[in-house]
């Protein structure tokens, strides 16, 4: 029998599989398809202080081995997430969940963090400082060491739960930003958010998505994510949730060898709603094939 358990900041996960924020809603859409309690955890839809419709449509464009989205953090706002979405989530998922929060100012991050801190089912707070689809917020906090550290310090002051900072790959040096977050008190790093990308429609000769650019995700970005996780793993001593293009059990192992303690699955959920279930079912056989008995032993094994 192989052991797939991993530990994130004191929270034991049955396996390292965590559907990524924005690809799994608040869980209940997928709970109609399979028992989502087989997941390690999941990261719920990015939540902001105020309700947001997000960007105008079209918001989706297809790419080679991936897709662009420019949703722009559509969500009902933190109050409704707590009063309407989390009760529904609790009915279908009974493990600690990852709360993904975002903001347009330090105050908004703090506001959301303080509110979500009181929710018992939240095991980890994942602070998104890397959304490429909103202006004047999101990614602007994640593109310098100073502002990344500032957000980290601000939210840490208002919660006792583990705080993971979700980083953008659209920066000159992701390693220094990860280190700045660690020094500011982050309990872990989530990486990577989507890469900036664009498609142009040859018929209209204009960008496909209304926002012109969006976030590129899918199997095409796995090598980028692996390279970045590998480098950050060498520079920090806090756990990494690795993500970017993971679609198979083999990809999960590859990401963990690069240095991830757990992994998030994003775009793959949208193409195959059963992908996380399939990966969890495949994982033991793939571990055996590569002589792995205890999954946590391989974290950072490629170094």
């Amino acid at each position: 029998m192989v052991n797939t358990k991993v530990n994130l900041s004191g929270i034991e996960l049955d396996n390292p599989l965590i559907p990524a924020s924005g690809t799994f809603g608040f869980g209940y859409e997928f709970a109609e398809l399979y028992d989502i309690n087989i997941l390690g955890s999941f990261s719920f839809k990015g939540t902001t202080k105020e309700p947001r419709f997000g960007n105008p449509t079209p918001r989706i464009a297809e790419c080679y081995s991936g897709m662009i989205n420019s949703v722009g953090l559509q969500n009902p706002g933190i109050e409704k997430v707590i009063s309407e979405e989390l009760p529904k989530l609790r009915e279908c998922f009974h493990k600690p969940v990852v709360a993904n929060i975002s903001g347009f100012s330090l105050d908004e991050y703090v506001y959301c963090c303080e509110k979500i801190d009181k929710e018992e089912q939240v095991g980890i707070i994942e602070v998104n400082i890397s959304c490429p689809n909103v202006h004047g917020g999101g990614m602007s906090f994640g593109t310098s060491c100073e502002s990344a550290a500032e957000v980290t310090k601000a939210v840490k002051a208002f919660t006792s739960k583990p705080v993971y900072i979700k980083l953008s790959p659209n920066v000159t040096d992701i390693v220094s930003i990860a280190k700045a977050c660690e020094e500011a008190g982050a309990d872990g790093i989530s990486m990577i958010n989507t890469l900036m990308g664009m498609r142009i429609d040859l018929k209209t000769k204009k960008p496909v998505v209304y926002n012109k650019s969006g976030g590129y995700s899918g199997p095409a970005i796995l090598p980028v994510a692996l390279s970045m996780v590998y480098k950050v793993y060498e520079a920090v001593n806090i756990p990494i949730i690795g993500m970017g293009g993971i679609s198979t059990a083999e990809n999960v192992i590859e990401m963990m060898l690069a240095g991830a303690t757990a992994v998030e699955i994003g775009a793959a959920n949208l193409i195959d709603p059963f992908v996380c279930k399939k990966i969890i079912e495949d994982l033991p056989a793939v571990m055996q094939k590569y002589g792995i008995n205890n999954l946590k032993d391989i974290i950072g094994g490629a170094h």
Partner: protein
Amino acid sequence: MNNVIYTIKSNEKLTENVFKMVFEGDTSAVTASGQFINIKIDSLYLRRPISIFDCKENELTIIYKVVGTGTEMMSKMPVGTKLDVLVGLGNGFDTSVSGDNPVVIGGGVGVPPMYYLAKKLIAEGKKVTAILGFNKADEVFGKEDFEAIGCRTIVTTVDGSMGVKGFVTDALKDIDYSYFFTCGPEPMLKALYNASETSGQFSFEERMGCGFGACMGCSCKTKYGNKRICKDGPVLVKEEIIW
């Protein structure tokens, strides 16, 4: 929603760029007309959402237009090809509010979902008129199918080369109807919104990521709040639409 492997039973050309594909496989997830399926094509990342033309036990038919790489690849698929399909997506039409003599109005590739809807309405004992709008005679398809199930069928063509000359709204003004259902290009839907004298249901299209409500890629604003075209739609009622 079910994830089913479908086998292509036939793939036939109807007009220059419109094809009819019949699948064999489980259709139990289809609960209403106006729902759609989402087809995975090898080598392409996103699935292709396509409306349901007809549905029986273990057999589902779509009519699709070649508009890009995916549908072009589909048009060349031989009989026997197996496809990974998500079946029974979207809310579909609510036929319970149609009254005794509803009209179904399709424009171009908006015609196909009207057929399965018309079949359902007729099965419920209603007297159904179908208005099928096209640009010109050689683009017309489906007319005989609607006639065969007992619909009074009116074809309109913009150039007048078949049926009523003009738009679907030109045909609509000459008939009596208790309610309407429609699918087609957005300018047509908007014209119907303004020209119609009763309530009705509109089926919308949008670029989708997942097709089952997870990604929020196809959201729209309605008078009843934000909705996802793929999950809360594609059918919206006239009263909730904001143009």
